[in-house]
């Protein structure tokens, strides 16, 4: 069946992301929360994460490019990003956020800026991975919805004949 094949492809892809260290087991926990009543749960979480991450990175860009860096604000934004990235299984991005926090504790602007570039790269890698998962999840949802409608369509056609 199309849906099953897509699911296997998705599971294989997630496993590859585990092996590459891009996702950890927390993503599996997120996926395990999805059920028939909430078939788009993973897609919704990915969308929310991307929205939060983009906003957080935009805020950090502004603050870190200021003449005088407000390290308390940097810590606050980085803390949020750490929480959301670790919750979705983005372990490398979460670690990068922790490093920025340490640089903030040392009031080291240059180090913060360096690490921020690294964190953005980790985010881009994670985003690419999550986008692929999002599209695969969407395909599965569409395939399942199509499969559910097909018996009804066949029944309708039979009545019309």
């Amino acid at each position, binding site marked *: 069946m199309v849906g099953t094949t897509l699911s296997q492809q998705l599971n294989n892809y997630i496993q590859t992301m585990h092996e590459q260290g891009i996702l950890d087991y*927390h993503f599996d926990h997120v996926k395990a*929360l999805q059920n028939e009543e*909430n078939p788009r749960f993973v897609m919704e979480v990915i969308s929310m994460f991307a929205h*939060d991450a983009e906003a957080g990175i935009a805020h950090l860009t502004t603050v870190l490019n200021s003449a005088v860096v407000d390290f308390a604000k940097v810590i606050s934004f980085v*803390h949020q990003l750490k*929480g959301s990235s*670790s919750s979705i299984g983005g372990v490398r991005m979460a670690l990068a956020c922790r490093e920025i926090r340490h640089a903030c504790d040392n009031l080291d602007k240059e180090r913060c800026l360096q690490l921020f570039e690294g964190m953005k790269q980790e985010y881009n890698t994670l985003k690419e991975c999550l986008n692929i998962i999002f599209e695969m999840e969407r395909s599965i949802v569409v395939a399942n919805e199509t499969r559910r409608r097909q018996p009804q369509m066949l029944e309708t056609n039979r009545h019309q004949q």
Partner: protein
Amino acid sequence: MMLGNCATSSSLSTTSDEDIVNNNLTALVVDDSPMIRKLHDMHLKKFGLKVQVAENGKNAIDLFRCGASFNLILMDKEMPIMDGAEATRELRTMGVTSMIVGVTSLDSIFDRQAFMEAGLDHCFTKPLTTENINFLLQELNKNNEEN
């Protein structure tokens, strides 16, 4: 990682998720992140709890002032308007005896200890895991049996 009343792996029951029926338990998730609220909401509902959410500590306190009560409160630390530590202190001052569990990304042992001292029963690292929730539900069910 947990601070407070610690459960070691040996003390954790091997009871499966399905064996713990929690239809009468209620929970409040307090977090400024919509994504975290959604994750914790779904996670707790999967265990059969009835869940409400609040965006910050002040909203949580307002719920209690309006007469709401919950068996379990999951409290984030860093929130605008009123953070988790202040909200926890206020709830305890109000006489709230719910199990209040900190869920935070904070790494510093000092920050986490300060959060515990605000009146938490336990403190976990974000994100909450199934093992964490199992432990909390066992504690809640134990408390209910004792009362």
